[in-house]
């Protein structure tokens, strides 16, 4: 049906894309409008980061306490695991498009939609991580007089940290990737370049892709670094 599109000549090049990132240029599609350049790229990148952080924060607020609670209690396994599996099957594009079409556009709606994508991995990994904490350590913690809250806070959560972080990292990847199509929901992220080929040109599309990939990798490496910083050396030793 869109054979013409598939065979469309590819005019993008990495050189052109980098030029687009650093130098503002006149759009060759819509006459006269200035596009690209560092300031616009930075602005859109920051918006994508902002949306990602907001959605991740919302997902954390919901999923982390729930995962800790159910993991500690050992109940709700079906929901926690099932939600994780179902979450993977939800097509991001359909979710965002549907949210935009049914509930409406805007930062708040987008944040909620993205947070929905982030909740399942955090919840599942937190739950599983807590359940997998050595029962002897928990028994000892209770035996030496830790309250249930202290057991979660001082023993289970630190020991489940690697698993929790796996969940947070997966959630972050999902959210930042999906934030690319945020323009569908009326929020101008880097997806603005990608979805607006007729304004920004093929080089603009590629520039957007480069920036999205960079942003995702920066987030991934930052979280990996943070995880390393927060994870006790003792856990790494006992994992060997």
């Amino acid at each position: 049906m869109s054979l013409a599109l598939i065979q469309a000549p590819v005019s993008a090049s990495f050189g052109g894309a980098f030029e687009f990132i650093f130098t503002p240029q006149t759009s060759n599609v819509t006459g006269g409008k200035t596009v690209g350049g560092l300031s616009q790229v930075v602005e859109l990148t920051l918006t994508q980061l902002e949306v990602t952080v907001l959605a991740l924060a919302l997902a954390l607020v919901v999923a982390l306490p729930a995962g800790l609670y159910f993991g500690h209690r050992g109940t709700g396994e079906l929901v926690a695991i099932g939600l994780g599996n179902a979450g993977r099957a939800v097509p991001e594009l359909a979710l965002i498009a549907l949210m935009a079409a049914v509930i409406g556009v805007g930062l708040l709606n987008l944040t909620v939609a993205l947070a929905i994508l982030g909740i399942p991995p955090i919840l599942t990994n937190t739950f599983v991580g807590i359940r997998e904490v050595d029962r002897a350590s928990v028994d000892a913690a209770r035996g030496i007089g830790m309250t249930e809250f202290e057991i979660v806070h001082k023993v289970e959560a630190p020991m489940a940290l690697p698993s929790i972080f796996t969940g947070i990292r997966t959630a972050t990847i999902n959210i930042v990737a999906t934030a690319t199509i945020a323009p569908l929901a009326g929020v101008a992220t880097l997806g603005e370049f990608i979805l607006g080929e007729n304004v920004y040109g093929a080089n603009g599309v590629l520039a957007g892709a480069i920036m999205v990939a960079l942003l995702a990798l920066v987030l991934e490496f930052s979280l990996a670094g943070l995880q390393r910083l927060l994870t006790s050396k003792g856990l790494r030793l006992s994992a060997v």
Partner: protein
Amino acid sequence: MPSEEVTDERSNSGASAVRYEGATKRYGDSSVAAVDALTLEIPAGEICVLVGPSGCGKTTAMRMVNRTVEMSEGDILIGGESVRDRDAARLRREIGYVIQQIGLFPHRTIAQNIAAVPQLLGWKKERTEARTAELIELIGLDPELGGRYPAQLSGGQQQRVGVARALAADPLVMLMDEPFGAIDPINRERLQNEFLRLQAEIGKTVLFVTHDIDEAIKMGDRIAVMREGGKVAQYATPAEILMDPADEFVEDFVGADRALKRLALMRVADIDLWKAPLAYVGQPTAEVRAKLASPDVEVPYPLLVDSERRPLGWLSERDLRADVVPSRPDSPLGPLLDRDDVMRDALADLLQGEAQYAAVADHQGRIAGVLSVEIISEFLGSPEAKTEEHGAVERPHG
């Protein structure tokens, strides 16, 4: 020295009696109790071993004390105070807890693991650190290991840390659930001895769970033999349990070799030794022969001793044919026992040396008497032995 004062105060006031009053545990609405109306008094400062086959409820019984298992009926009093009235977490901070799986926190260093309870109690940093250092020394760990993580320690070292963590806030009572069960036999014995030495110093009230009757005999001041359904079959000292099992169940559980086990509870000094005719170097042999001829002689061979009465060897017929006692005896001394030797080991020495008699020396090395296989077998068979009671003597004297 102030630190010594602290230690003294601790051992004097740091233990409370534990009293079970009909403590019962039922799981769900099961009609069969896991622990059935347990009534037991454990005096302050003693080690009480709960021993029995798996599934007899011994661990459940122990766990009701710190309420990691909530009892269904009855009560348990620590120092006269019901555990039921206490906030569970606060109660547990006053009770040391050691488990077979050790359960150290892998994400915390050894020092942080030991400091866990003091931290929960909100001790000042300096006090916690001082106490941690003190405990690392007490359990004989290299102070350098304080900064290591559990994964870097051997199983035996980890359980020493487990014991130190339990002792950190100077608990009134210690609960130990098969604490040495997962340790190899050589290290287990070492840890048992270390703990007994420690206990002689700190004098805690200890509830010790094991399924191993030998460990129970070794560790316990008192033993509660439990049977399925959480009932106590017999509660007595190790010696009583060995000599006078309350019923067939206890007899079976203690094992057919209980006579031998009793020997592990006694020292050579606890038994009446025989006297051998003594012979001194250079003494006329006629005098020695006269001693041998006396009717109340118990050992038919003269024992050669030096001027300090230290045993040198046994004289033979040939030695006595000379005029004076020679300085070198014909037969070697054979096994030489100490008055403090455990009877089981003394018997082993006798059998291994293929000797009928063994000289027993006192602390100065002077002859104290002679032990024979006959004395041991007579003792084990005699009725008065069954009433005689000796402490669990294998522990080092505090």
